[in-house]
């Protein structure tokens, strides 16, 4: 298989160097850039499969660079920024980034996100969707094979966890309260002080999410219930 290249773009050389080490450990090729313009140049000179992009950079900032890249390229862009406001994240994702990681990040989490994006980008829908398969983003439910996959990797779930995922995937985008989930999955009426559903859901998140505290698929709607996001 052809080597996958990642372009790291950050004005802080220490971060770029550290990321280079991590990425090379994961077997990726690395190109380095320190400004937005350098990133655009590297992009035109080398074959790049994924970009890690800082926002606050001299010459050309990350958001502007994202817009310029998106004019003709479809490659995954993960923004890594110290700006942690909701508005910054929304702006970054709206401008065409695929993911947004705030500094200081856990290097392992970042690598997991890189791998996730890379798999989705390179798979390019090569896995034909069979009947009975539900899919949202990188999360797949194969009801015939009773399998749950995230970015192609099979996730091991207990029967109850699997039941919850099936129920939520079948009603993707809808929010269900703990009582509703309990009644549906356990098939018996719920009673008070029952927080096993919440515990199961946390465990599911720990298995399918890269960062369970900031879930991508199985989201907590605080004070209302849970849902699986529809992408």
């Amino acid at each position, binding site marked *: 298989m052809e080597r996958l290249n990642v372009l790291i773009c950050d004005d*802080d050389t*220490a*971060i770029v160097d*550290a*990321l280079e*080490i*991590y990425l090379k450990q994961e077997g990726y090729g690395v190109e380095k850039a320190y400004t937005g313009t350098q990133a655009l140049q590297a992009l035109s000179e080398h074959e790049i499969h994924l970009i890690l992009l800082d926002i*606050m950079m001299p010459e050309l900032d990350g958001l502007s660079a994202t817009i310029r890249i998106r004019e003709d390229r479809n490659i995954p862009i993960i923004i890594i920024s*110290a*700006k*942690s*406001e*909701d508005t910054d994240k929304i702006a970054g994702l709206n401008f065409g980034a695929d993911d947004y990681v*705030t*500094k*200081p*990040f*856990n*290097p*392992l989490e970042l690598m997991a996100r890189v791998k996730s994006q890379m798999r989705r980008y390179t798979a390019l829908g090569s896995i034909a969707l069979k009947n009975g398969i539900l899919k949202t983003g990188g999360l797949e439910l194969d009801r015939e094979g009773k399998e749950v996959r995230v970015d192609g990797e099979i996730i091991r779930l207990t029967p109850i966890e699997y039941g919850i995922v099936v129920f939520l995937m079948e009603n993707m985008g809808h929010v269900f*309260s*703990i009582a509703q989930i309990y009644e549906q999955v356990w098939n018996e009426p719920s009673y*008070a*002080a*029952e*927080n096993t*559903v*919440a*515990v*199961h*859901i*946390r465990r599911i998140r720990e298995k399918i999410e890269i960062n369970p505290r900031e879930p991508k698929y199985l989201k*907590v*709607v*605080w*004070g*209302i*219930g*849970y849902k699986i996001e529809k992408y």
Partner: protein
Amino acid sequence: MDIKLRNISYSSGAKLLAIIIVWLGFLGTMGGCILWLDNRQAANASSYTETYSFQSTFSRTLYNTVEYYLAVPDEDNTENTAGDSASEDDNWPQVNPIDDRFPTMVNFVYYVRNTETGQWWSNLDAEETDPIGFIQKQPSTVFFNGRTSDGNIAIMEDIKGLITDRPYEVYAAVAEPLQPGDAFYDYYVDFNRSKVLSQTASTVSIISFFLMALAFIYLIYITLLRDPEEIKTQRPVRLYTDVHTLLVAIAAVLSLTIGVRTSMGIPDIVTFVFLAIVLSLDIFIGLFYVLSMAEQIKTGQIFTNSLIYKLGSVLKGFLRLAFQGKVFKVWMLILLGGYGFINGLLFILCEQSYYGFINGNFLFMVLLLIAFNAGVVYFIARSLVALPQIMEAVKEISAGNLDYPLDSAIIPVSLSAFAEDIHSLQGGLKKAVAIAVKGERMKTDLITNVSHDLKTPLTSIINYVDLLKKEKLENERAAEYVNVLEEKSDRLKQLIEDLVEASKASSGNLTITGEKVDLHELIMQACGEYEAKIQQAQLALHINTADETIAVRGDGRHMWRIAENLLSNVVKYSMPHTRVYIDIASDDGYGSFTIKNISAFPLNISPEQLTERFVRGDESRSTDGSGLGLSIAQSLTTLQGGEFQLEIDGDLFKVTTALPLWTEE
């Protein structure tokens, strides 16, 4: 040229001339009027025959004549009926003596005839062939018999009565041209003289009036052209306009009375001179008054330079002073006393006038009493109407609406000082709030920016510590150091995030959405998240819910953050093998959850200090976490309109978070 003209028109000579013209013109007008009034009968009549004196004399003469001829012979009728016409001259000796009886009436002609006998009497010449025609030609001809009358002169009914039902007819007139020698001639001469005099007088009067008016307009015109400042410097002190007006009015009434009294009698030279002096005085007083008023209109002092205005402003200033500060109460007492005194006085006057003890109109007194009380009520009502306005403004200000307008137009003088104070209070608060808001925003901005700058190097530290950990370190202590570095860099990361969040929460620099948040669901979810940690801390969790459908109005993410911070504290600080209670309840419009746990360490710190550590910053730090959790939870609760309560009872640690219940709108 212009300037020259102005100079000329302003010159004192021209002004003096104009004043003299006004004076003489006024005298001429008034004199002419008096003369015209004296001769108004002649002026209105077209002929001397129409004058009253002529007609009354004519009537009297005619009466005498008829009476002389007809009334007297009638008595002697028995004697004379037998007499023939030839004996006329002898039997009626009275025919000739007519001249003796009326020697002065040389111009009076008459012709009296008995229609039955054909007898006649006349003072006309015997040669006169047509005496009736001659008489009827005269402008003052009169004819009458027992039944009808005709003629140009109105005659007394008594005369007609003399020949009623008797066969006589009378022709009479004053023959023209008149000869001197009798009253009719005098009337004729007088009439002609009066006619000329009245015409002259009216002409003089009209011309004088126009001259006076012209000069007067000129004087006012040049007054109004003058520079107000020049007028002011020329005569800085003046009589008050209203006092001046009153004095002029008194003078006018006085002179009018004098004028009417003196001109009642037959005008003579002394009266005329006296009147001229009085009128001269009048015109100078009047002219001075009008010009003074014109000057004050020009300088804009017409109202301000009045006694009423001066008294009013003094009173207003006095009242303002009285209602300010300490003298308020004293003046209130004096005003109250004054009100009672005046009311009592008026009441007594009413009573006295009602019983007629004093000379006064009862109705007028009652009206005065009512008017006085109505005035007082109006004054008080104005204050009372304004008071709720001020109270409303104070209420709004205390509620935080610093932009509530206080309409100063409707505030009466008694409360204006108070209203002004409130207004400035509003301004001061507004300024303070603006400064505080600006300061909070600057603080949050500073913390956010600093945290950005801290995060970048921290990223490198975390990354390289992680890389270092993966290196094969020969030295065991080195590996231990790396672990410390990792732990502390994670704590640093947490601190920075909490710092930013605490700063935002305490300054209110956060977006808050009002969603329906089910408290039971929230606690279930939060406990689900913390289940593993609670087990790890060897704690038993008990959730008590009175009602599973308690929903509050809040922001789900913030509610989670509050629950997370509190549970995180529970896990960190609870004594192992104890129970943790979470009670969900609703009370008085609020839904709340209370977390109770037993602290592992003695809590030698007050609840206030626990939530204010971020602000105070001088208490010792806990080794784990940022110590900002409670502060953030409190700020977030307050921001969502809720209440956050901490209670420490020995080792029992109790936190209650209450939020307004969800209501469907």
